[in-house]
């Protein structure tokens, strides 16, 4: 398989971004790198995709941000809000239920055991 199906991925991008923020605040570039590392480079979000997601989470009050000038450049840090943490939990549960459901529906098709000859 060559990369992930972007159609499949689209629905989970917000979830992935929220999850990366669960262990502490990060700025955009760092979030991008963390997603890349954690997914063995399968998830390589373009900035053009990432920033609209971050801004959307911000308007939905799932993340809050603060500016930091200490590195010499103005840098925008994102962290989860209480609502964001709650949302992350809900979305993880949803995702698990979905995977379970899909596994049951697909049955042997999704089973890694070898196909009969």
């Amino acid at each position, binding site marked *: 398989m060559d990369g992930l199906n972007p159609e499949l991925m689209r629905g989970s991008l917000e979830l992935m971004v929220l999850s990366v923020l669960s262990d502490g605040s990060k700025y*955009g570039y760092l979030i991008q790198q963390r997603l890349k590392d954690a997914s063995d480079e399968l998830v390589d979000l373009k900035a053009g995709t990432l920033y609209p997601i971050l*801004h959307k989470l911000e308007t939905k009050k799932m993340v809050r941000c603060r500016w930091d000038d200490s590195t010499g450049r103005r840098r*925008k840090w994102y962290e989860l809000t209480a609502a964001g943490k709650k949302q992350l939990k809900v979305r993880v549960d949803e995702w698990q239920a979905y995977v379970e459901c899909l596994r049951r529906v697909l049955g042997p098709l999704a089973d890694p055991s070898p196909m009969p000859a």
Partner: protein
Amino acid sequence: MPEHEFQIYLSVLSRLVKLDEQQKSAIADELSDHLEERFEELVRSGLDRDEAIRQALDEFGDASGLAVDLTRVSQKRIRRIIMRSGLVTAALLIIGFGWAFLFPPANDALNSEPLLIAQDATSNAQTPAKIALDTDSSDFDEPFLKKKVVVNFRDTPLTDVLEYLSREQEVPILLDAVAVEEAGLLVDEPINFIVEKIRVDQALDLMLREFELTWYIENGILHVTTIEVANEKFLNRSYDVAPFRAAGIAPGTLLEIVMQATDALWEEVDGDGGRVSIVGDVMTIRQPYQVHRGLPQLLGAIANPSAPGRGIYQAEEMACLRELEVATSVNFTDTPLNDVVEFLSRQHEIPIFLDTVSIEEAGLLTDEPISLAMSGKSLAITLRLMLSEFELATEIRSGELFITTIEVANEHLHSVVYDVRKIQDPSQLFEAVPALTSGLWLERDGWGGTMSLTENGLLVVRQTEEIHREIASVLKTFVAKGTNQTPHRVRRTLETRLYRLPSETAEDLQSALPSTIAPETWRGDGPPSPDEDSLAVGTVRKVSVGQKVIELARPKSTSQPVKKTASGNAKKADEKPVPPAPPETIVVSESVLIINQTAAIHNRIDDFLRSLGLDQSALGRKTTKLSGGMSGGGFF
């Protein structure tokens, strides 16, 4: 620091992002941090400076798509405020965001297009002549209809939208709840409609269309009902024929144009629909409101003999047409169609509207991914390249540039008036235009456009937008090259003559003529023979023109002729002095036979009709030959 290159990218992006300065600068700071960090890492990994800059920017993706996304995220914030407010307070909140007036009716803008408003043909009056005569015409000219408003409705119930409109425009509005509910709709269907700067009438058209609803005004009350119900609501509107007569246009031509130039149904032609009749100097048209709306503009364009021949678009539509020719620059990678539309609409500052209903019916999504990088081409060409892959097309409708399916665009015909006075024998256009353009034509293909030529040298064509574009360019060459360059493909010159007759006679003749006079020269209802040498070219059609007072066919005669059909009581008139006598009139149902034939056959038809003893005045009125020097010049 490669700040320069990044700053260029960011300033392009900033220009495209439609947010306030503070938001823009925050976005620029954040993205600049990202670009620089990425650049440093790429340099650390061994790339040279230029290569690192290029790659950092490449990875970022296209600025236009990002700008659209970032703008949209912030706009959603505004929309959400309205949604959260709930149904009860929605109407109140919308006042803040909703129909704010930008400026009063743009009458001046309209009048500046010489073709848009009829000029009195007999005088040089500066003010446009009023062609429509009826006293209740204010229903058609309500000033609020032309006001420009900002519309921002998001999931707002229809009833609230109308209530708001009613209060704001001070017009009573009646929602036909019975018809709406019979059509399976709710009176509080959610309306989603967000447009900057749109005329009230156009906003109504577009908002209601999605639900197959429409509107009309009667006695100052704006009714909102289903299209079906509104189509049965016939209203009379009368027009002064004098300006047309002064422009040299025969009543028959006028009737032909009125009947061909709209979507309207006509009782005699279609079995059901409106009627039109000319009595004296007054033409009365009986049609639903929406049919009447477009007519004054069309008729005005025809009556105006100095028409420059550009069509009868409204000011907003002219703006769209002009903007389509403006060069644009796009760089989309898998950008959803609706975002592309929003981006182009903002960039060109014209309303562009996605015909979501038709698009979704065709099995497409409004967020189909668009990928196109191009610059320097006109908006029209750019859109065509982008849309053709999805079988989508653009058309101008209700003052908006619409993106719809090719199928829908091809069904939507509208009339444009072309000035062909510079073409020596414009009747040749009846063959040349269909031959040199790719449209369908009613006459030839059984469905499609129609053409009429007026005596004052105007060609009225009803076609799709796409074909109008082709026609305009064909006509341009003809006009530019003058008389010698008429296409050699035209072998026989067809002439249209109109014969106004009692309906019964017309019906008999319609079937008798093709079998009696040179049967080999008629082609019936089918398509024309592909053989260019075929003689079968003639057609005969009949249209009803309603009831007619017979004496008016001979306005010149001083004494009242006694009609043979009026024999019984007409003699009584002898006892009274002739002048003050009320005109003895009889009213008969009349039709016009429209015969397309070569001049030679026309003359034989005229002889034949005379031999039947038909009134001389009913005979062949030429409509496609111009009077005076122009047609005379054709012999040289």
